[in-house]
């Protein structure tokens, strides 16, 4: 950009100093520079009338509807997760109860509630050592530890992947 262009732009933006103004006045003795000034003033006034575009009238409604859709999806995702956990827990409880029901000896004539509870507890007492000894088995322990290790590694990489994804998203929005 040459000197007159620089000075004219400063003049248009009211950023010109006194010495620069004098320099500009001197350069305006050249008719071509006067034309440049007039044209730049015309650009400036035309740009002040620059046409703006309005967003569609229904935009706010659409945007808010899209946002609430997103919330409801997010909520329903959370609910599914809770439901999933509750169902797994329920299944474990149901399996334990069924196991007790089928393993206990219910043939005795004394069917009082306290007697039934004692029988159920007996089933638990009789089977717990068996279950514990199963888990004390070396191969089962090795398998369990290996699976836990694999699970922890997968969990670690999943968390890291999620973190980097979040970073990328925040980079896009910043």
């Amino acid at each position: 950009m040459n000197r007159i262009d620089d000075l004219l732009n400063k003049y248009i933006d009211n950023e010109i100093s006194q010495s620069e103004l004098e320099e500009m006045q001197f350069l305006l003795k050249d008719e071509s520079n006067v034309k440049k000034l007039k044209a730049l003033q015309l650009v400036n006034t035309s740009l002040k009338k620059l046409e703006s575009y309005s967003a569609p009238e229904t935009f706010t409604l659409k945007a808010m509807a899209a946002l609430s859709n997103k919330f409801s999806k997010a909520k329903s995702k959370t609910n599914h997760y809770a439901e999933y956990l509750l169902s797994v827990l329920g299944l474990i409880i149901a399996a334990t109860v069924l196991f007790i029901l089928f393993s206990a000896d219910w043939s005795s004539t004394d069917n009082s509630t306290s007697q039934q509870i004692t029988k159920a507890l007996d089933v638990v007492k009789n089977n717990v050592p068996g279950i514990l000894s199963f888990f004390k088995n070396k191969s089962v322990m090795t398998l369990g530890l290996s699976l836990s290790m694999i699970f922890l590694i997968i969990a670690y990489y999943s968390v890291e992947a999620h973190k980097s994804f979040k970073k990328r998203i925040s980079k896009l929005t910043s």
Partner: protein
Amino acid sequence: MKYLNDFEIIESVKRGNQSDFSLLVDRYKDRAFSMLRRMLKNELDAEEALQDCFMKAYNGLKEFRKDSQFSTWFYKITFNTALSIISSQKRKHEQEMTSIDDEFDIGKFDPEIYSSTENPAQYINKMVDKLPVRNALVLILFYLDGLSLNYISQVMNISLVNVKVLLHRSRNSLRDLLLKHNYQEELL
């Protein structure tokens, strides 16, 4: 009804009043749409991008810090969204995303625009759309949105000097076109 400033609205949204976000949408949709419309040169793309911008803004409200204005932050989101759309569309990517130092020539659009406009204001209005994205954006933010050059440098993440370079070059290129058609004589 009490006027809420941007920060008050954001606090309200953070407290769980999601519907208050519509106040921010109403407040900024037209200015952001104008910017996107000029950058993307297409109304449908601009509307879709605008929705995306408000989604990003909503999702980022938790990270929004009060040390900057919401408008600056939102304009940044809008600007970056438009840039990523342009690059993904590969719309003359190399030409559109020119660096500040690159020269550009909009003279090739002149015959078509000149023949379809009746006065300098209309002519300039259409020619702005033909400028490279960054140049057009500086003009829009400066003239249409009335933002200061400092503010524009924050939005576009470039130095104040570079904003001035973009502004001066854009005006000079438009000025040269007006000179070519002797439009400056209409001032007399």
